């Protein structure tokens, strides 16, 4: 999933303080799972904002709504008939949702309510960690299913570097060394021969380095 983290409420207040009719818009997908921008978080944020403006003696209307997704036209269309009731929207979707909202509702300011962090997993309740950087050319088949692009601080394709100590990364003793994990796993799979080969230079043109990316699938286009 796309993992996001809450933005400090002060930052959101700073953005919206001059508006009077505000919609807090959640998303029922990734940000719900990582508890940053689902229905529950929309409710919490709306209450906090109402409380703040009440204390300020400011009359501000705060409404709540959570869409199935904010990355598809059809769901964003669901609010078209109510959009004229608001002079600003705080979207608790990931950066994708915020932007798609902004593209669709050209004259309404859309503010981000979360910080979009990475593609990751729920390690345990309240702990999410990165697994993928969407480089566009997956090499997991060669690395025992563990990604050095997203999990090695130096993105080494031929690690581990000289800083690896007791299975941990040199930049943080809490962080597993991705290459230790890769070696352990290749060993478990009986594929250590793979480790002995030099992984060639990666083509980064499919990564963000190649500019904004696009996937076109004619087989599913109508």
């Amino acid at each position, binding site marked *: 999933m796309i993992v996001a983290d809450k933005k400090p409420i002060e930052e959101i207040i700073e953005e919206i303080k001059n508006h009077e009719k505000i919609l807090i818009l959640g998303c029922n997908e990734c940000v719900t799972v990582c508890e940053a921008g689902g229905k529950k978080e929309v409710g919490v944020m709306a209450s906090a904002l109402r409380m703040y403006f009440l204390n300020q003696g400011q009359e501000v209307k705060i409404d709540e709504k959570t869409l199935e997704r904010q990355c598809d036209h059809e769901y964003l269309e669901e609010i078209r008939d109510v959009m004229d009731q608001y002079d600003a929207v705080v979207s608790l979707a990931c950066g994708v949702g915020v932007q798609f909202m902004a593209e669709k509702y050209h004259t309404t300011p859309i503010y981000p309510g979360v910080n979009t962090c990475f593609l990751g997993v729920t390690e345990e309740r309240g702990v999410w960690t990165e697994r993928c950087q969407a480089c566009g050319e997956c090499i997991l088949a060669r690395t025992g299913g563990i990604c050095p692009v997203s999990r090695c*601080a130096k*993105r*080494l394709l*031929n690690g581990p*570097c*000289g*800083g*690896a100590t007791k299975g941990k990364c040199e930049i943080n003793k809490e962080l597993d060394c991705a290459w230790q994990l890769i070696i352990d796993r290749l060993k478990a799979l009986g594929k250590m021969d793979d480790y002995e080969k*030099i992984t060639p230079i990666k083509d980064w043109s499919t990564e963000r380095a190649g500019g904004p990316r696009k996937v076109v699938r004619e087989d599913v286009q109508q």
Partner: protein
Amino acid sequence: MNMNAQSRLQEILSKGEFAVTAECGPPRGATPEVVRKKGELLKGYVDAVNVTDNQTAIVRMSSIAACSHLLQMGLEPVMQMVTRDRNRIALQSDIMGAYSLGISNILCLSGDHQSFGSQPDALNVFDIDSMNLIRTVQTMREQGKDMSGFELNGPPRMFIGAAANPFADPFEYRVIRLAKKIDAGADFIQTQCIYNMDRFKEWMKMARDEGLTEKVHILGGVTPLKSAGMAKFMNNKVAGMDVPEPLIKRMAGVPKEKAVEEGIKICLETIAELRDIEGVHGVHIMAIEWEEIVGEIVESAGLVPRP
């Protein structure tokens, strides 16, 4: 091993002489005198001088420029190059530029992560890793081509070095990684500072068993300790560094004013042991910001005059 570059270090190593290299960290500023002063201290005592590339991710005078200053003094530099700050375009360009200035040795590294430096908010590059940098320099030299396959008008012919850390984990696969670096094109290896001699000897044995010492020149790394505090710091705070407890105790066991002397003694004992290890072809003395001690160490070790 390459026979093209005009590297004196290469010449010495291929003749079977025990090589001596040292390190010179460029200044945090644009004053060439700092480099020249360090060069003066090393002249006559070493075969080549490694010039670090923004080590510990702290901005310094560029390695190429500092190498050039040393060259003008008649010293042979080993240009260290990290993949942290430059993409493949800049790396290849700088390799050619360096060679055009007369720099004939390169040490290919990935580089300390920027989170250790003075500007941890910097973006890192890591377009390629040290392994592929080695291969890139080798391809330029052997095939005369850049990474796109373009035939270069006067390819750089660098003597190629790589680093190895026998003390990092997982230990049993460190030799495989060394083999990969040799396969990628490394001619010589400079190791992380050796304090744990038992582990180093074990690693060397594994390297010999794999036939690697026939394919590459290994220079053992040493750093003279100045105090027990430094020994403890290196053991606890520097990633991939292994200073055994008895050594820390030995440093702590002498009066403070004798600590430097004891550190040098340990260093000399290490060098003496290195000279007896089959497959070790030299010593790399990393006296960090303490270049004035190198001459004394080399002299006391009986390694002067240099060839």
